[in-house]
């Protein structure tokens, strides 16, 4: 793994099970507690969510992932952010990752917007004093000045989204993952976000965006991968 890449996925395969029960797997864990085991064979109710995915991103790359529902886009993001682990293959990440599989994950409804900025900021790896310093910028970006000390359970879904996005783009993470988050906001905020993404690119941050909206991806990304049949193919520009 050379460090010239911010992010490298080599021959990544991911197996999922369709059964709702995981009895076998916990037993496996207990048995395998003191030994290592890999499985590349599929049993009856398993399928490959990813097959031999290869991706390599340099610092400052903005890459789009495009594909139908269930093609495996989010699984790729989850593997990059080590929420889940590949069954086979290797992942190398150089730098801190801010995963935005879902904006505002971890917001607590009873806490105010300001308090949730602290929670969400530390979740994506910021320091408390760092968050305090960036607080005015985050609030200004979210355009929620008048509502920031209100519990977020009273927020609309748009306000929720703005707050989450504002925290993420103002973090110091070197790699940012955006899953389908621009498609829900209004046009003004969407444009603001697109500008912010360009700004982040100037700042040499690496960004992966997932979207169903090809035009949006074309506007922001350097290259777009089509995720189809559980594997990633570079789309001709």
């Amino acid at each position: 793994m050379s460090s010239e890449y911010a992010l490298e996925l080599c021959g990544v395969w991911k197996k999922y099970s369709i059964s709702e029960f995981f009895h076998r797997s916990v037993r496996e864990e207990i048995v395998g507690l003191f030994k290592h085991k890999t499985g590349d064979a599929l049993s009856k109710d398993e399928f490959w969510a990813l097959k031999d995915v290869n991706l390599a991103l340099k610092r400052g790359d903005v890459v789009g992932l495009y594909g139908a529902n269930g093609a495996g886009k989010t699984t790729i993001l989850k593997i990059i952010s080590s929420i889940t682990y590949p069954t086979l293959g290797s992942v190398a990440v150089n730098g801190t990752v801010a995963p935005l599989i879902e904006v505002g994950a971890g917001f607590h409804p009873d806490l105010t917007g300001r308090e949730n900025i602290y929670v969400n900021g530390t979740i994506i790896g910021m320091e408390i004093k760092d968050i305090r310093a960036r607080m005015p910028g985050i609030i200004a970006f979210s355009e929620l000045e008048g509502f920031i000390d209100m519990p977020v359970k009273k927020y609309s879904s748009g306000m929720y989204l703005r707050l989450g996005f504002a925290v993420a783009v103002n973090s110091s993470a070197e790699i940012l993952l955006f899953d389908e988050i621009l498609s829900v906001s209004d046009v003004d905020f969407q444009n603001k976000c697109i500008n912010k993404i360009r700004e982040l690119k100037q700042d040499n941050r690496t960004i992966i965006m997932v979207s169903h909206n090809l035009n949006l991806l074309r506007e922001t990304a350097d290259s777009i991968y089509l995720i189809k049949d559980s594997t990633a193919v570079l789309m001709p520009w």
Partner: protein
Amino acid sequence: MDIIRRVIRYRQLFIVLVWREFAVRYRYTIIGVMWAGLQPLSMMLLFTFIFTYIMKLHVSSYPSFIFYFAGLIPWTFFAHSLNASIPSLTNHYQLITKIYFPRELLPLAGITAALLDFFICAVILFVFILIYRIPLTWNALWLFPLIVLLVVFTTSVSLFLAGLNVYYRDVRLASNFLIQLWFFMSPVMYSVDSLSTKMKLLLFLNPLTFIIENTRRVLLEGRGIVLWQMAFVCVVITIFYVVLSRFFIKIERAFADVI
């Protein structure tokens, strides 16, 4: 050791999670943090009423309500920790499937919040000790290793059950019953002093028996700890911790796929 290292690396998130646990619990309440002392205090009154005034039991040379309170404090910490940590992973499935962080932070945040309650109650206990002029001796310093044992034991059990609950939700349903059973197996409202050796051995299978009995012994009776017992319990609890935390780290990787 692994777990300690991971918590230190993610300490900022850990601090915020503990603060959140505390803030959310007492938000929109009138008496707020006073709830921490209220529950053991009301149990204490109940026990004193039943055992001292109705059943006319004589449990200690010092006021019996202090006897009950001293047992209730470690017990309440243990029970609250289990109650907070067992559903902590499954309640936060939105976080677990969306963001990576060491998963043990969630149960540990619940345990730490319970530990803060524990210290609030400990202050109340010391006020009682001062008011009733119970003589403190140097043996009271044994309290600190006892608290460490209590926390390590509680952490091991909590991590194990919280992790298992991700796979089998039976754990959560069984936990109420389990905690109740455990309560009667721990010397909170009785003392093992007057029991036969056979019964004592049976009850000492539960590490909490050792911890609760000795808390009273060193703090209220001014006696020392039997060293070989202390060493034995230390070894048992360490083994417990190593095996159960290793189990947790092993199954933690699959939480996002299973939950």
